[in-house]
């Protein structure tokens, strides 16, 4: 029975390339897909591209994956798929072409998928009557229309599969859905029909288990993190599929763990309603799914069902919301928390006196409650025993100048505030705050195409 194996090479932009390079060098796989795009990554890329037209994609794919393992991938017939193209697919393709030429890889085929970026078509879509409703139910799209950095549709597997059909060694996309990067080669290899929803759903969940890299193999593993072998050499997961099975494993000779619990933690991760996990390719139902250990670092996943894909595509719209500053001061025992709290009062009184108009202020105490907030243990005992505590004040304003007002007021508290205050990390900077507008677009408004060029 035909078997196809695909690995997950990156979980986000900035991930370590070690596991991907190791996998290309040692694993029995035919494909590897690398996910670089989180929800706001495209907005950051769009902003970079505004300053420098050559930017706007994830160069790491070229400088960290291809450079170290691209030639081996080609020699071992491992085809690579990635959404590293971000907002600048052409720039990414150019960089890969330069790399392939430098390596002397004549005939190297680069596939690229376009059509997800629909920012230029917003005016027409508005004119056609599409309102880009906020799925969280707040505001009118027209209020943010002039502040948009990017507007990309989460597209499915079709463009990628077209490139694979044409023999691409590497396929570059922009905002293809993470799991579509994995579904495309699986569908291509196993010959699934476009409406074979159960099989497509199995392919999507294979991608879902791989798209976060190490998180599928013992990273961020609550069940038993102490006993994850060789976390410093954490392997990333590999999915093996046949016409009717799905198994998860990892490369030989690397750290990490593939077991029922590690797989389950990733399985429902960010899935929301498990009976209706919506992707551009299929609506997945995992309410009957089961995970069983099949051997050392190998599990089998069964019971995934699929239903017809939706008629709309989710949009990733990033827009300018305002500005923020984050300031910190540290305090030590005794009374670390009391001092930090008093210092916050002093700062906020000063801010009131100079008339800082903040739209939101968030004060928390690192070492006590900055992560768990309301549910942190702030009992008398916990506070009394605190060795140290960092005051953190975050300020948001639509007006950049208002945000900046707090910056010069922090470091003087070392001399003018409660005892032992220590200012660290340098002066705060005003940072731009970008936000997401959660909405959809009709599927037929997005025209996807996949082309291949030869080096």
């Amino acid at each position, binding site marked *: 029975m035909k078997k196809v194996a695909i690995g997950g090479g990156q979980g986000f932009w900035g991930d370590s390339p070690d596991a991907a390079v190791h996998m290309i060098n040692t694993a029995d796989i035919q494909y590897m897909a690398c996910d670089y795009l989180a929800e706001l990554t495209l907005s950051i890329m769009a902003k970079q591209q505004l300053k420098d037209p050559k930017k706007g994609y994830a160069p790491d794919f070229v400088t960290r994956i291809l450079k170290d393992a691209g030639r081996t991938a080609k020699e071992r017939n491992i085809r690579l798929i990635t959404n590293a193209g971000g907002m600048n697919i052409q720039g990414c393709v150019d960089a890969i072409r330069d790399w392939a030429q430098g390596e002397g890889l004549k005939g190297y085929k680069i596939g690229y998928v376009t059509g997800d970026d629909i920012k230029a078509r917003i005016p027409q879509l508005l004119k056609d009557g599409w309102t880009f409703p906020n799925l*969280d139910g707040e505001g009118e799209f027209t209020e943010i229309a002039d502040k948009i950095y990017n507007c990309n549709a989460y597209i499915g597997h079709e463009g990628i599969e077209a490139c694979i059909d044409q023999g691409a060694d590497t396929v570059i996309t922009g905002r293809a859905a993470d799991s579509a990067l994995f579904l495309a080669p699986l569908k291509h290899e196993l010959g699934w029909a476009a409406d074979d929803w159960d099989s497509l759903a199995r392919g999507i969940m294979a991608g879902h288990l791989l798209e976060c890299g190490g998180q599928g193999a013992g990273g961020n593993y609550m069940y038993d993190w102490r006993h994850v072998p060789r976390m410093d050499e954490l392997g990333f997961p590999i999915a093996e599929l046949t016409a009717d099975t799905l198994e998860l494993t990892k490369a030989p000779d690397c750290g990490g763990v593939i077991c029922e619990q590690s797989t*389950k*933690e*990733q*399985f*429902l991760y960010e899935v929301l309603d498990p009976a209706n996990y919506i992707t551009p390719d299929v609506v997945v139902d995992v309410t009957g799914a089961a995970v069983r250990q099949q051997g050392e670092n190998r599990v089998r996943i069964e*019971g995934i069902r699929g239903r017809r894909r939706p008629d709309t595509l989710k949009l990733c719209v990033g827009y300018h919301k305002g500005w923020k500053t984050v300031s910190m001061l540290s305090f030590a025992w005794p009374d670390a928390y009391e001092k930090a709290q008093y210092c916050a009062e002093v700062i906020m009184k000063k801010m009131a006196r100079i008339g800082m108009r903040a739209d*939101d202020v968030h004060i928390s105490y690192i070492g006590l409650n900055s992560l768990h907030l309301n549910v942190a243990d702030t009992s008398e005992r916990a506070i009394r025993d605190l060795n140290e505590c960092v005051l*953190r004040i975050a300020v948001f304003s639509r007006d950049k100048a208002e945000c900046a007002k707090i910056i010069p007021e922090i470091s003087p508290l070392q001399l003018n505030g409660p005892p032992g205050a220590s200012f660290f990390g340098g002066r705060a900077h005003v940072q731009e705050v970008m936000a997401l507008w959660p909405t959809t677009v009709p599927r037929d408004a997005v025209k996807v195409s996949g082309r291949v060029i030869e080096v």
Partner: protein
Amino acid sequence: MPEIYLHEIAHGRSGDKGDTSNVCVFARKPEYYPIIEREVTPEKLKAFFGDMVKGPITRYSVPSLGGFNFVMEHALGGGATMSLRLDSLGKSMGSAVMRLKIHVDEGELT
């Protein structure tokens, strides 16, 4: 009835979609599943988090995986870069859920 942290009988992971926090919770042993089902209700979690989670909390059951998905809306102070929280993506919301104190009967824990 003894009171324990959910952490003792469960594990899970948190993720984010915008301002929504998604925490999956699995029983550490199959026999703990009904305890979680009884003890970790959306109402209880809502009261536990207070104004830290501003929207509704929905619980989805997946018995074949021995677990649940808790979807908490308006839970991350705006989400992603909009949030002023240190943990704007809610990476620690999973462990926050595990702090919930639950009641177990004598003999329920083996």
